[in-house]
């Protein structure tokens, strides 16, 4: 192997001892580092990796759960809104119906009242007319009675009658 080594001046042999020192110390170093440094470090790193993996899985699960809940809520909201709008529609229809009924009733009653009032007015008018006619007729009768010739006999009888009446009192 000597001829392979650059810088070998020939008078120095191959330092097999150095090789042995290197082999022994490198293997000891490997063992010591593995035991004291790499193994604990690797454990910690693996632990972190597992932690991250589990956290990611967890987050994914939570995301799916949240999505499910959101969909559920949206459906619920939609249904509630539909319910509300149908209830509102019903109420509005009911209100319209009631309104119409009330207006109709009011109209009917108003018409009736109007008719009653008209009838009353007409009756009063008729009564007044009748009164007038009666008065006219009585005046006519009185005129006729007065214009008729009262004869002597009748006059006497009338006076008698008035006197009797006055005496009777």
């Amino acid at each position: 192997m000597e001829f392979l080594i650059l810088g070998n001046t020939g008078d120095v042999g191959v330092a097999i001892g150095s090789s042995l020192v290197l082999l022994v110390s490198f293997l000891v170093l490997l063992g010591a580092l593995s035991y004291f440094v790499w193994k604990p470090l690797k454990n910690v790193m693996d632990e972190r990796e597992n932690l991250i993996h589990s956290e990611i899985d967890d987050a994914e699960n939570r995301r799916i759960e949240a999505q499910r809940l959101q969909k559920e809520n949206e459906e619920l909201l939609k249904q509630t809104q539909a319910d509300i709008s149908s209830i509102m529609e019903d109420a509005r229809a009911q209100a319209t119906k009631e309104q119409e009924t009330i207006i109709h009733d009011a109209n009917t009653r108003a018409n009736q009242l109007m008719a009653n009032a008209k009838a009353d007015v007409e009756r009063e008018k008729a009564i007044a007319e009748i009164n007038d006619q009666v008065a006219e007729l009585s005046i006519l009768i009185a005129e006729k009675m007065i214009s008729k010739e009262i004869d002597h006999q009748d006059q006497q009888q009338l006076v008698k009658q008035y006197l009797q009446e006055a005496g009777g009192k």
Partner: protein
Amino acid sequence: MEHGTPTYTIDLFGLPVMFDLSTSLMIIITCLIVFFVFFFATRKIAVRPTGKPQVLVEALVNFVKGMISSNMAWKQGGKFHFMAITLIAFIFVANILGIPFTIILPDEEHTLWWKSPTADPTVTLTLAGLMIVLTHYYGVKAQGMGNYVKSYFQPMWFMAPIKFIEEFTYNLTLGLRLYGNIYAGEILLLLLVSLITTGGIIGAVGGFIPLMAWQGFKLFISAIQAFIFVMLTMVYLSHKLSDDH
């Protein structure tokens, strides 16, 4: 630019085993720095990061994870994760150790004590060899011995020698690329330093800016080389692991 190397040789069952003392020392220093930096950076770790150190270390861990998963399935490559982080941290620290200063003793050999351990070919080739052995081990484990041996004779039987040599080339290129980059960088640093210290007033003024620029660039090279080393290791590993290769 010749520097002496402090060596120590022991006899192991009659075989002389030579230690490059400065390289060995720097390897151990690198290991200690890497260990304590990461140890103290991760004392307070939590699932929810509380400080910058944890974030930085995690960024490195994730970066290396990305490098592995760009080459092979994480199910296959996950077991190399700790090795790859340790490797990239070790090589990066080893590369930058030679940037701030170099310690050369003022004896007649100019013994070099403080340097990047990766400026030593023994170190880089050993690391590369370790990685290549690893690829073969996991190749046999993943494909089974039969398929592993068969893969050398595909697509044509006469490709076998080339494929066989290729395995050694992997080792050489992986190790020597790192060594060459760091060693050359240190040589240039030493040259610039000697220009400043021995070149008089002109040398000092003329060498200061390039020295700073080269230190910054060497920091960049250190990071890139550490990245390339680990990346290529993962490429070789994925070649050996996949069945269709």
